[in-house]
């Protein structure tokens, strides 16, 4: 168990009546990609902040397996991370974490390769970069210290299509090649569907539903009652099964779906 939430309650202000996170229990395993969805204000970002130790549970606890230094082993890429740049120079921004964790600077070339940036970018100023490059620099700034658990908060917002595809390849590589555990908060369910193993839905600070991604959507009642968004490809497969009694093999891309449709038409 990489991460375990034990009856976690959290509220920002002791004087608040309501809890932001309400009796949250979940067990996340190593080396999987998790999607975390929920309406705005449901507590998604708060969960990520709790995991990263930026805030502490008001009640309950969070346990980690094999993690001695939470800050060093967990990486958190915030929403609009480019807005939190505080250095002017790319190299300084990316190596900020290396300085803090006393790690050597030879990681820099490697992390640039992983996010698909050229080495020359290290000498550039942050305001000279394009939006996509800035996003990748922000991601590199977190990956550079090689955390075991990596969390993304709305990573696709403001990204154009090419960079989105790059991001998808990157996240898959984090799991398959680098054995990381990844948690992604996103409201883009079609994007999530392509890469996640398991899906977590949260509402009003409570765990609504948590399952492997196909089984998750078998909970028809909960999906309908709470208006949980369904990936279009899966919706297609479900409607074909329900209305036409044909069971298509699961696809995660349009091309695979087309092949399945063609086989069954």
């Amino acid at each position, binding site marked *: 168990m990489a991460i375990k939430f034990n009856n976690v309650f959290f509220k920002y202000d002791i004087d608040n009546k309501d809890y932001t996170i309400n009796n949250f229990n979940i067990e996340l395993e190593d080396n999987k990609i998790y999607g975390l969805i929920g309406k705005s204000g449901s507590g998604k970002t708060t969960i990520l902040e709790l995991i990263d130790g930026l805030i502490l549970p008001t009640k309950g606890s969070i346990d980690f397996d094999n993690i001695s230094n939470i800050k060093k082993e967990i990486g958190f890429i915030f929403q609009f991370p480019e807005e939190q740049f505080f250095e002017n120079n790319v190299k300084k921004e990316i190596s900020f974490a290396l300085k803090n964790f006393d790690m050597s600077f030879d990681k820099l070339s490697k992390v640039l390769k992983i996010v698909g940036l050229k080495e020359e970018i290290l000498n550039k100023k942050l305001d000279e970069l394009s939006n996509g490059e800035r996003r990748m620099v922000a991601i590199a700034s977190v990956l550079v210290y090689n955390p075991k658990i990596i969390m993304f908060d709305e990573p696709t917002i403001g990204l154009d299509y090419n960079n989105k595809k790059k991001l998808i390849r990157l996240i898959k590589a984090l799991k398959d090649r680098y054995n990381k555990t990844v948690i992604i908060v996103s409201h883009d369910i*079609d994007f999530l569907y392509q890469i996640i193993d398991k899906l977590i839905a949260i509402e009003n600070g409570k765990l609504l539903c948590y399952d492997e991604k196909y089984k998750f959507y078998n909970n028809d009642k909960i999906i309908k009652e709470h208006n949980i968004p369904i990936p279009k490809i899966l919706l297609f497969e479900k*409607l074909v099964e329900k*209305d036409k009694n044909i069971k298509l093999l699961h696809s995660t891309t*349009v091309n695979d*779906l087309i092949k399945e449709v063609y086989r069954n038409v």
Partner: protein
Amino acid sequence: MKNIIDVDNLSFSYKNKKIFDKFSLKIKEKEWITICGKNGSGKSTLIKILSGLINNDSNITICDYKLNEKNIYEIRKNIGIVFDKIENSFLCETVEDELAFILENLSYSKMKINKTINDLSKKLNITHLLNKESNQLSGGEKCIIALACAIIHNPKILIIDESLSMIDVEEKNNLFNILDSLHKNGMTIINITHDLRESYYSDRLLILNEGEIMLDGKPFDVMQYDKILNRLKIELPVEIDLCIKLKLYGLINEINPNIKELVNIIWQ
């Protein structure tokens, strides 16, 4: 239907970079047009030029007024804009103050301001938000309030500048229903966005790239040019990509984003 916005041969440079070169665009009255394009395509610059925030002496006519310093007041009376950073456009403390702001500037009487605010709040279902502070609202609520502030003076043209990217699907649907009813009542709507899904309701989809119009037509017609959109780094929604490929295989005849209907058409 006559043109409510007529841009004729616009040329504009910023810091020695040419943004528009002899650019022309005509938007008809009561048209709902979606403008898409990657960052740097000129979308936001166009809005700033149309709203008179950036000076330039080109031939632009809005609501029969030539765009110049003399007419900018009359033109702005007829435009409502929702900017992308919504928090930065809230100038007053409460929602009610915010709604009243432009009406105060237009010298409406106190009674008229009161009535206008009450009527609009009832219509948009936001009466319960009137006394709240603008920074205490949720993302979706902020959007609706920003929209309300942009239409409260009953402008002929509503411009939404990439403001809708951060809100939930449910809240977005609610907002688009509101836009739909505004459109049915004769408002011209210009929606600037990255998300092609937002064009499903609109009459016209315009794809902008580096200050040039690359594609212009009915949304589902434009979306068929998937290779061009790909090259322009514009993402096709999953369901549209699916339709285009189904069409290629001869399984459907036209693009339909409704999955249920698609399934019925394929397996008749």
